[in-house]
């Protein structure tokens, strides 16, 4: 089997998350140049009457089934050597959705950008100097980036 390096990951703390959606706003703005959770990789699941908010984002699996399911592995679904995160190369992705079917989480942490017909997912803001934009802008430190070395 193809050797995949361990990846860094985003960790969410529901105890301090205010459910404000700043992570969604900044994610969609940084990655897509638009505003709205529909094209954000980082997703708040709000529960206003309990104030216990959840958060859905790619868990960056150690054995990423999305990566193995991709017919264009290493071209469309790739692994970032620096962080270990799986990411989608939009120029290569054909929108076949095999990665989405393979994602073990519900809801799947990969979705389809209908306009471009390509899959999109969290790539831990590949190449961004300050690391993941959602972590940087979360004013409650509800999102933390755990590097691949620190990840147990």
């Amino acid at each position, binding site marked *: 089997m193809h050797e995949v390096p361990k990846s860094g990951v985003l960790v969410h703390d529901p*105890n*301090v*998350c*205010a*459910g*404000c*959606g*700043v992570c969604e*706003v*900044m994610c*969609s*703005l*940084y990655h*897509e*140049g*638009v*505003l*709205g*959770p*529909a*094209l954000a990789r980082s997703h708040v699941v*709000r529960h*206003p*009457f*309990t*104030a216990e908010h959840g958060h859905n984002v790619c868990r960056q699996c150690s054995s990423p089934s999305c990566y193995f399911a991709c017919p264009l592995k290493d071209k469309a679904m790739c692994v970032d050597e620096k962080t270990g995160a799986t990411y989608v190369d939009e120029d290569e992705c054909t929108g076949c959705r095999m990665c989405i079917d393979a994602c073990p989480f519900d809801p799947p942490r990969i979705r389809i950008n209908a306009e471009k017909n390509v899959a999109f997912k969290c790539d831990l803001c590949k190449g961004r100097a300050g690391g993941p934009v959602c972590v940087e*802008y979360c*004013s*409650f430190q509800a999102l933390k980036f755990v590097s691949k070395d620190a990840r147990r």
Partner: protein
Amino acid sequence: MRRVLFVSGFEVRVKGCEAIDVAKPCGWAGKVLQVDLTDETVNKVPTTNYRPEKFIGGVGLSAKIFWELGCPKVGAFDPGNPLIISVGPLTGTYGPFGRGEVCAISPQCYPDELFTYSGFGGMFPAEMKHAGYDSIVVLGKAEKPAYLSIRDEDVEIKDADGLWGVDTFEAQRVLMSDEPEASVLVIGPAGENLSRVAVILNETKFAAGQGGFGAVMGSKNLKAISVRGTGVVAVAKPDKVLELTRAIVEENKKMYWLRSMFQTPYTAPQETKDVFAQRYFKKHYGCYGCPLQCHSIHDIPGMGLSGVSCANWLYAPKFSLDPKEIWEANVLSQRLGINTFEGMVGLPFLLAISLEAGILSRKEIEEDIGLPTPRWLGGTATNHEFLTVLLDKIADGESPFADGAARFTEYFGKKLVSGEKLVDLYKEMYTARGYAFHHVDNLGSALHWATDTRDPVDSCHEYKLNSPESMEHFGLPSYGSYQIVDLNKTVYEGAERVAAWVQDNQCLKNSLPVCEFWSMITSFYKPPEMDLRVFESRLLSAVTGLDMDVDELAKAGERIWNLRRAIMVKREDRTRESDTLNEPYFKKAIKCLAGIATGLVNGPIDKAKFEALKDRYYELRGWDANTGWPTRAKLEELGLKDVADELASNGKLP
């Protein structure tokens, strides 16, 4: 670079403007949704029909829509009263912009029901924008209880039989069990029963509070509006927006003290605050996309969880210092859908001060008014007994309490022996048009109150918080103090310039929109390094692609204020004479004031000097001093020729 932009037949010149793409505009969601509950029809029109590059959004867009509807001369509870909910081009951007505005003919305004506005935050405004709408206009009246279900393009009027009579929290839970990611605007029993102090609520805390718009929804048999948006809003220059967000991150850190202040009952002693901070505080809470989250969520076991900020705490200290009683007042108000400023502060204060001043006796309160006398009024009733009776009476729609303090005192003014004195007291505590005293701190704010349709200070705390440096920065006369000042000591000279500037700025705030909580601090925080007007123009330009400089933005604010004035003149026969405050403000020192301002002495305002101030204000505004009406020259200068023509045909152009 100047380009000519053609929008639905109008020729609009916008400096350096890239044309707004009607199909896919940047910043604006693109559509105005019009729903008629009587005919059960749904219509969508491009937002560009309403010239958003001139009226921006929020109150500006709503005023434009109301104007195009002909400013109907109907009552607040008439099906022809349009309930207009608008967001702005910055709504949903990172920062203090997650707000919307409700505009309609208001049942709270007194004695006449005026077209006015009330802002609200929360999740609904951004969700509505993600669904594709800059504005939702609801007309007509449903045959039976209904709610509006919006999921992107799909808009349905649905049966709300099972939700009528259900409190605001529970109704949202039911609607969200069908559509978990929806955001809901809802009314409680108060709105259903046409209480004139009923709110429209989103989640636990985000309310369009002043204006009594909950009752407008109730009059339409409209229990709720549920919206789910799965779209996105395009941004013209994402990189520029990203760059500008850096400044917001920095400003946010300077705001923590204000958030902390309102985290616990700030008017109560430290012990009470500590109980909330240590035992009941759960987390911070606020609008979509805002890093501050200025509200707080507390949870008292057995009483439930709710959000709170400034006015929600004001049951303390006068009425109770018991944390559970303070909390009960808040949660009950929110669940019943009552304006906390009226239900917790206004009416209880009116009763308390009436009793203290010997205007009302305990017997009158108990037998004639029908309230149990609480301990803080020297009686034996617990706060729970008092509150449940009072708030239930406000929510039931039947008792005089349900009509708000103005109509309550009018009713008992005729009925009670000491009624006249009660009316006099009301007029001191309520500054104008049925709205309770709120920072009538100097001649600038007094003039603003006199020329608006409601308590304006919710979105212009500048009057309270200005500093000599910031006033100087904006080229305005200084009051020389941060603090609330005695009206006697305030200079009349130059107050017209302050009021006009703040009014235009307020129109911008409520249209872009920008949160009052931020702008009241940041715009005056160390100018010119952080001049909010400059920042707003840069951000608006980056989001929309329109090149709106500071002057263009200021012009837009002035245009919106003039359009609002034109609505007052056309629909409400507004004249110079009606630009005033309740008469006690000109006769005596006002010391019986609602809320935290109790004990301050304000006034009296010198009537002759105030009239001279109004002369200068009308001149500065380019309005006619005899009538108080905007002139053709001013309206045309602002690109409002159609408004001038319409006023002329109504015989209301000087």
